[in-house]
């Protein structure tokens, strides 16, 4: 059974339809890379999966829970579906460790000491053991984004959604974040990534999804799709991206 199942989802902002019937199945351990032009609906789709956006038609099931179904289930769903944002969105008044510990203590009622141990573990995983007590303002962009990843991991998600998580970074900081994501992929984490890093999508992705005008326009194994794109739109997109 799929871990995330997206079935003919349609979403409009006012009269403008931005998702025009998207279907996608994501199995456990998949690393799905979503690519496409600006405005094609990539972020919107991702945000529908954890309920940050609502959709009008179709259905999304994540870990067997229907997104946008009854209210009580949304909390349960979000405990299992993590998200990392382009702009990091760390809590600026909390240290790195406190950022990571907050949800486990508040949502899962994990005792402080145990939560601190979780924080130490996930921050070590993203290579920031030294920065436990640093505030976000004292960290570089790449470090902040890695703390944000750790914050999601602390909830032990079954799926991690990443929306262009390297796009706000200086070029020299991109790799340290991508390496962390690659490591997660190797460990079997299910990932759905919106990305402009084509090389990363090809090397790390298990599935590639090309979105165009609010639809899944082409999909397949990254290597095949990049080697021989079938649709003229993807040919053009891949060509334009070099």
């Amino acid at each position, binding site marked *: 059974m799929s871990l995330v199942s997206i079935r003919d989802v349609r979403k409009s902002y006012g009269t403008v339809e931005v998702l025009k019937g998207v279907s996608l199945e994501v199995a456990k351990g998949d690393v799905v890379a979503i690519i496409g032009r600006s405005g094609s609906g990539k972020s919107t789709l991702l945000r529908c999966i954890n309920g940050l956006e609502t959709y009008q038609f179709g259905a999304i099931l994540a870990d067997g829970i229907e997104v946008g179904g009854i209210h009580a289930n949304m909390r349960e769903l979000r405990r299992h579906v993590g998200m990392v944002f382009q*702009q990091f969105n760390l809590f600026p*008044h909390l240290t790195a460790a406190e950022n990571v510990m907050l949800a486990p203590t508040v949502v899962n009622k994990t005792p402080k000491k145990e939560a601190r141990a979780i924080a130490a573990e996930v921050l070590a995983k993203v290579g920031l053991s030294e920065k436990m007590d640093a505030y976000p303002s004292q960290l570089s962009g790449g470090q902040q984004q890695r703390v944000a990843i750790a914050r999601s991991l602390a909830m032990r998600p079954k799926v991690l959604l990443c929306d262009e998580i390297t796009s706000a970074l200086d070029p020299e900081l991109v790799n340290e974040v991508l390496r962390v994501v690659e490591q997660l992929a190797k460990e079997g984490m299910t990932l759905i990534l919106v990305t402009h890093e084509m090389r990363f999508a090809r090397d790390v992705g298990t599935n590639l999804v090309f979105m165009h005008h609010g639809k899944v326009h082409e999909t397949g194994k990254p290597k095949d799709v990049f080697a021989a794109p079938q649709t003229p739109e993807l040919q053009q997109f891949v060509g334009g991206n070099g």
Partner: protein
Amino acid sequence: MSDFSLWIIVKNLLWATQWTILLSLIAFVGGGIVGLVLLFLRTSQVKWLEVPTKLYIEFFQGTPLLMQLFLFFFGVALFGIEVSPWMAAGLALTLWTSAFLTEIWRGCVEAIPKGQWEASASVAMNYVEQMRYVILPQAMRIAIAPTVGFSVQVIKGTALASIIGFVELTKAGTMINNATFRPFLVYALVALIYFCLCFPLSWYAKRLEGKLNVAR
């Protein structure tokens, strides 16, 4: 015109000042508590909570405080409930204060970037948890200066309670004037005392504002 009578005037005014301070404190603390509750209702995005809280705020912001005092003092008496000036003034000022504080604080909450809401929602926090642990700690920083600034309005607002017979600084001034017939002296002293109460607060608020601007 002896120094002795001046001393008596000052003494009586200072004695009445304590009621001004107490009423201000009640209004400010009570208004703060009610205001915090209203803030949660107002920012919860729950539609049916939004309209009544909006109406409440519009009413207390959109009508003169004096009318509100009259309504509480005389209006409630119509229902056969005895209301003391204390009760009426305390209640009216509390609710009036709460309406303004809610709006001040709502502005501060809305100044927090949307990403903070989304990030906290994404780790499964509910609305109250988001407010308590993520939004309010950040909003509080920017709220302190305007909140302290508003406390000056509360102190000045208590002067109106004199009209329903609450003996605070202004009322005491009127009574002393009636006995001494020295309006300029008496009201100059009253004004001076208000100034001594309010100036440190507005000065402090200005300083906090400056500090915050530097910190950015």
